[in-house]
């Protein structure tokens, strides 16, 4: 029986389940305990699980992400919450120089079963130090796995398999999704290796992830009314990419539009299009396109922020261009 819930509650339930099922799991980060989480995700967990397992940290991203790595090495299954992806830049050293390298550098002796969750993305008028979509950067790094749950089902279901994974997994939760409402079937199991077709279509593959999935699905509805049948692919897993699902869709539709809230230059969108061209060039009927954020630090003013991001209207317009 499905029950109405929100993305925020789905993440909270995932955390609660993990803390209940595995005594090695603990949650640590800024304001995750007494405050209840910056986005109220962990509200109530401190009271339920106590201060040992829901740990407020000082403002020390470098310190507590590094400590998470050490705790993972020491036999625990830490979930580290970083407030936003912008703040995770203060922890790039432990994430990239240590978490991602340790297994290789030690000749396979030490794995790092660490999960790091963070909010990403724009849309809340938080300007240029709280709004960026830098998950694409992390997808550059061998040794890391990168997830972007865009649905309630994934928000609820991706954490547990991430904790079972022996290597570091980063989970990016788009800040605009926390209030997403819907129905959630209990007990659903999801994987952390595949992309998913969220809407079937025959004329265009609309490939996206995270915060723009909703916009892409809305665009597909509008395009349908305008005579274009768009297939919407949710990447879900940003590293490693599920090429097979992308290519299967492209072989069917022969046209591609990638929508990515990251910037265009050196982007995840660029990587996806390159893979499609490498593996499916002769299947294409038109040059693939991408719609990314404008190459500007995200501005505060609402009209400018809106203009910087992929939106329903710009997705529809780009789709017409690809199909034109």
């Amino acid at each position: 029986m499905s029950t109405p819930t929100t993305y925020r509650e789905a993440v909270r339930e995932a955390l609660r389940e993990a803390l209940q099922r595995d005594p090695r799991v603990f949650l640590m980060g800024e304001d995750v305990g007494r405050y209840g989480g910056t986005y109220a995700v962990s509200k109530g967990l401190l009271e339920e699980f106590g201060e040992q397992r829901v740990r407020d940290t000082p403002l020390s991203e470098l310190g507590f992400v590094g400590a998470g790595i050490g705790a993972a090495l020491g036999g625990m299954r830490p979930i580290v919450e970083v407030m936003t992806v912008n703040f995770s830049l203060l922890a790039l050293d432990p994430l990239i120089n240590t978490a991602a390298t340790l297994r290789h550098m030690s000749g396979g002796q030490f794995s790092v079963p660490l999960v790091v969750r963070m909010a990403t993305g724009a849309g809340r008028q938080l300007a240029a130090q709280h709004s960026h979509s830098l998950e694409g950067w992390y997808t550059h790094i061998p040794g890391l796995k990168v997830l972007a749950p865009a649905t309630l089902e994934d928000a609820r279901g991706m954490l547990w398999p991430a904790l079972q994974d022996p290597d570091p997994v980063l989970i990016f939760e788009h800040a605009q999704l926390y209030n997403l409402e819907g129905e959630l079937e209990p007990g659903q199991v999801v994987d952390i290796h595949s992309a998913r077709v969220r809407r079937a279509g025959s004329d265009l593959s609309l490939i996206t992830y995270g915060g723009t999935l909703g916009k892409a699905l809305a665009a597909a509805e509008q395009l349908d009314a305008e005579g274009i049948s768009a297939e919407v692919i949710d990447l879900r897993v940003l590293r490693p990419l599920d090429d097979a699902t992308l290519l299967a869709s492209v072989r069917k539709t022969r046209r591609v539009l990638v929508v990515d809230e990251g910037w265009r230059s050196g982007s995840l969108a660029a990587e996806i299009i390159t893979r499609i061209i490498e593996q499916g060039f002769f299947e294409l009927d038109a040059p693939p396109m991408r719609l990314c954020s404008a190459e500007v630090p995200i501005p505060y003013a609402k009209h400018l922020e809106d203009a910087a991001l992929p939106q329903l209207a710009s997705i529809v317009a780009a789709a017409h261009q690809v199909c034109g």
Partner: protein
Amino acid sequence: MSAQPVPYESPFALRLLHDMLRIRRLEERAAELYGEGKIRGFLHLYIGEEAVAVGALHALAPDDAVVATYREHGHALIQGVPMQAIMAEMFGLQQGCSRGRGGSMHLFDANTRFFGGNAIVAGGLPLTVGLALAERLQGGTRIAVCFFGEGAMAEGAFHEALNLAVFWQLPVLFCCENNLYAMGTALARSQSQTDLCAKAAAYKVATQAVDGMDVVAVHEASRAAVEQVRAGQGPYFLEMQTYRFRAHSMFDPELYRDKAEVEQWKARGPILSYTARLRAQGLLDDAGLVALEAEVEAEVEAAVTYAQAGSLEPVADLCRDVYTPQVSP
């Protein structure tokens, strides 16, 4: 400074000398092999600082966790990583303790809980805090020890790690190896507070400055610190005052310090001074020293022979160990 008598019985008293010699001769041989092109990349020698690793690591229990820097041949060796596996690693061979993936700066060994070999200055400190946190959460009594240079105390990671460790009262021993130079920059030329214990004490950690050229002083201070840390009284910060006799790495022309200064410190060398004390107390004679040196030389030569007979990992395995192989359900 007149050192106190060596307060140990013969086997342990000689073991300290033996271990310092093992590090010294291993590294002297490594430097030669570097000259011959058998070892490449960076090679940071610990020569001059041996009393620190030997004195401190002998104060630990065998299953305590150790995190070191890129100048860690000695720490790995004394923690129990076989010399031949260290040598093979420097040769870049699959018989190396990191299968040739790490080299001199990244020695690892799960068996002895030696967690590297971290070449990001202060990078190992938050890791150590996490190891101690894991131990605390699992109710164990093992402690975690990190070694780092005084240069690391200018890094944010030092301050964040120390704050977390003290705030959570975790079982961490912070061992600062103050060799006065962060690569080529003297402490006084780069940090506002050069009293390192005072700097650490700002975080309400117990501190002690130790003559890092005296293996007895290091060992005694470490034993006392380890006891407190293991008893749950929170972390401890030791400043080991020591000196690097060789260049920072094989690429360093040493333009930043006087030869006279180096000679002054060499006169206080940890092996030199400790040998003299053992002799004066009748714990060591000429024959004993010759035998000890012969034993060390044999171990070093066996390690070189082992490495020379080793093999390169097949290139086909290049991308192994980026991710952990997963058993399909």
